[in-house]
C-alpha cells in the first residue's frame, strides 16, 4: 500500500472511540446517526482551515486585538472634524483608517516574503498614528481652548483604557499619547509575527472549543502527512500541510444565499460562493450544466440591477433566482459555482455531509459520478459522510471504472457493545459491511411491518 497523503488519528472525542482516517483521494464514512461522522468532518475542516490559513488567521486575531486602537483613532477623527473644516484632511484620514481594517490588507502584499509583508502593514499602522499625532499637535493651539481641552481629556481617557491592556500608563501632564499607542501597536505586531514563526496550535484549539460546546478536546489528535507528523495536540505546533491548502465544508445545500449565520463554516462557504475567479475545469462544469441540471448557475455582477446574488439560467433561456430553485439543483449549483470561481483544485479538501440529501436517486448517482470525476481530473480530495446505499456503491463502482479505485477508502463506524462509542473500521475498497449496516433497515421493516 502506498504512503497515504494525509492520515488523521483521533481517539476519545465525543462519539469517536478510535478513528484512523486516510485522505488520499475519496474517503467515505458510513455509520449510524450520532456515530461521530459530522464530528470528523468538523475536525478536518477546522484543522485544515487553521493550518492552511495560519497567517491570515493570526492577522485576523491581531486586528481584533487592535480593535480598540482603531476605535480610538475613529473617535479622534470625529474630533478632527469638529475643529477643522479641512475636508481633504478628514477624507485622507478616513481613507487611511478604512484601509487598516481591510481583512485582505496583508494578502495584498503576498508577493513579499512573510517578514517584509508584515513590516509593510505594521509601517502603515504606525504611519497613520503618526499622521494623527501631527494633526492633533498642529491643532492643539485651537481658538476654542475650553472645548478643545474637554475633548482631549476624553480622548486621553480612551487612550488610557486601551493602553491599560498593554500595561502602559500615561501621565497627567502628557498630551495625547500617540507615541505610546504606536509602541502598543508595535508590541502586538511583534507578538503576531512571533506566532506566525512558531505556529502554536492555539488557533486550532480555540476553533475546536468554539465549534464543540463544552470545550472538551480529543484525547488523541494527530495528523500525519506522508506519515510525517504535522499536527499533534501534545506537541504545540501546527506545521503547514503540503497536500491540502484549503478545506471546504458543505453540510446542506440550503446554505446557499444565507446572508449571515451563527455558523462559521456556512459564512465561509457563502463567502467562497460569492468569490470571482477563473475556473480551470470548465469541462466538468459543462457536464453539470449539460448532463445534469440542464442549465447554468452564475453569480450576478455586483453592479447589476439584479436583487439576488445567484441566478440559474435554464437550458430554454428562462432565468430564475437560484434561491427559488429546487434544493437538488442547489446541491449541484454549489459545486458548479466553486468550480467556476476556481475554488476547487488539487489542494482542496471538499468535505460533504450526506451529499445525497434532497437528491432524486438518479441525481445521487450523477453526484457520485461528479465526485469521482473531480477527483480524477482535478485532483480534489473528498471526505464524504453518507447514509445512502446508491451513493456508496456508485462511488465505488464508478471509481473502479475510472481507474481511481486505489485512492478510495471506505470506513464504517462500528458500535462498541452497548456504549455510545464507535470505532471507525477501515474497509479499504470493500463496501459490503456498509451494506450490512444499511440492511438493518430491511430487518426493521420486517419487525414493524405487517
Amino acid at each position, binding site marked *: 500500500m502506498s504512503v497515504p497523503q494525509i492520515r488523521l488519528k483521533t481517539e476519545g472525542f465525543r462519539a469517536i472511540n478510535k478513528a484512523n482516517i486516510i485522505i488520499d483521494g475519496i474517503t467515505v464514512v458510513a455509520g449510524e446517526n450520532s456515530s461521530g461522522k459530522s464530528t470528523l468532518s468538523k475536525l478536518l475542516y477546522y484543522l485544515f482551515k487553521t493550518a492552511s490559513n495560519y497567517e491570515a488567521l493570526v492577522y485576523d486575531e491581531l486586528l481584533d486585538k487592535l480593535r480598540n486602537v482603531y476605535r480610538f483613532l475613529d473617535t479622534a477623527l470625529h474630533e478632527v472634524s469638529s475643529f477643522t473644516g479641512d475636508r481633504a484632511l478628514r477624507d485622507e484620514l478616513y481613507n487611511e483608517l478604512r484601509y487598516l481594517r481591510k481583512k485582505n490588507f496583508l494578502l495584498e502584499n503576498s508577493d513579499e516574503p512573510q517578514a517584509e509583508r508584515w513590516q509593510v502593514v505594521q509601517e502603515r499602522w504606525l504611519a497613520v498614528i503618526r499622521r494623527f499625532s501631527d494633526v492633533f499637535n498642529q491643532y492643539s493651539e485651537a481658538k476654542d481652548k475650553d472645548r478643545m481641552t474637554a475633548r482631549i481629556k476624553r480622548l486621553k481617557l480612551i487612550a488610557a483604557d486601551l493602553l491599560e491592556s498593554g500595561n502602559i500608563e500615561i501621565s497627567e501632564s502628557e498630551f495625547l499619547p500617540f507615541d505610546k499607542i504606536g509602541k502598543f501597536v508595535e508590541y502586538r505586531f511583534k507578538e503576531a509575527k512571533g506566532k506566525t514563526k512558531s505556529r502554536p496550535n492555539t488557533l486550532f484549539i480555540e476553533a475546536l472549543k468554539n465549534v464543540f460546546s463544552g470545550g472538551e478536546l480529543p484525547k488523541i489528535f494527530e495528523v500525519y502527512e506522508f506519515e510525517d507528523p504535522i499536527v499533534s495536540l501534545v506537541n504545540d505546533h501546527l506545521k503547514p500541510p503540503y497536500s491540502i491548502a484549503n478545506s471546504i465544508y458543505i453540510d446542506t445545500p440550503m446554505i446557499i444565499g444565507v446572508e449571515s449565520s451563527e455558523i462559521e463554516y456556512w459564512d465561509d462557504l457563502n463567502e467562497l460562493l460569492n468569490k470571482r475567479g477563473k475556473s480551470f475545469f470548465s469541462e466538468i462544469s459543462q457536464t453539470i450544466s449539460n448532463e445534469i441540471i440542464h442549465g447554468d448557475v452564475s453569480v450576478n455582477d455586483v453592479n447589476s440591477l439584479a436583487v439576488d446574488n445567484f441566478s440559474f439560467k435554464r437550458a430554454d433561456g428562462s432565468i430564475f433566482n437560484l434561491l427559488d430553485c429546487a434544493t437538488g439543483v442547489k446541491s449541484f449549483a454549489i459545486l458548479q459555482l466553486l468550480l467556476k470561481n476556481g475554488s476547487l483544485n488539487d489542494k482542496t479538501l471538499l468535505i460533504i455531509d450526506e451529499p445525497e440529501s434532497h437528491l432524486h436517486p438518479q441525481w445521487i448517482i450523477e453526484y457520485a459520478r461528479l465526485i469521482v470525476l473531480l477527483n480524477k481530473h482535478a485532483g480534489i480530495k473528498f471526505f464524504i459522510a453518507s447514509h445512502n446505499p446508491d451513493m456508496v*456503491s456508485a462511488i465505488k*463502482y464508478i471509481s*473502479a471504472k475510472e481507474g481511481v479505485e486505489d485512492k478510495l477508502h471506505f470506513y464504517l463506524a462500528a458500535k462498541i457493545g452497548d456504549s455510545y462509542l464507535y470505532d471507525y473500521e477501515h474497509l479499504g475498497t470493500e463496501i*459490503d459491511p456498509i*451494506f450490512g449496516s444499511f*440492511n438493518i433497515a*430491511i430487518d426493521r421493516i*420486517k419487525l414493524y411491518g405487517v
Partner: protein
Amino acid sequence: MKYCYPTTINHSVASLCPNVLENINSLAVREGFMTGAPLFPQMEIVINMDDVEAHNAYLVPRKQVRSMDLAFAISSQDKRTKEMVLVDLKLNVGPSLSSILKDELVEKIVESRKTLGNEVKIHGQYIFIFQTNLVEQARRLFFKWNPRLDGENTSMDMDRLKSTYF
C-alpha cells in the same frame, strides 16, 4: 430442515434425466467457488438443474430456457416435511452487481419451478450464492426489486448455505 439425500436422488427429475446428479463441491468449483479443501467433505449430491434443462430441451426439442443451477431436498427431523431448495450460483458476478438482471432471475425461478413440478413442495426462499463481499449488496438489490416483507430471493455465501441447509 436440513439436506435430505434420499429425497434428492429419488426426485423424478433426477430419475428421468441421466447424469444430472452431481457432487455439490465440483458444481460449485465449476461455477467459480474457490476453495482449498472441499467445503462439503460429505460430497453431498445435488441435482444439476442446467443439465436437466439441457436434457428436457433436447427431448422436445426446443430452445433452452434459463434455469437455476442446482436443487436439493431438505427434510424436517422426523422426515415428514420435505421441500426442494432451488439455488443459483452467482460466484462469477463482479465487481458490481450490475450484470444481474431481474427478468433473468425471474425466468430462472419460474422455469425451474415448472421443471420440478409439484412432486415435492418447493422451498419458499430462492437462494442466490455470491462471493462473501457481495452478499449484503445483493440483499439490498433484491429488496429494491421487490420491497415486500420476507422476499423470496435470498442472498448468501457458500458458508452460509452450508450452515443453513447441511
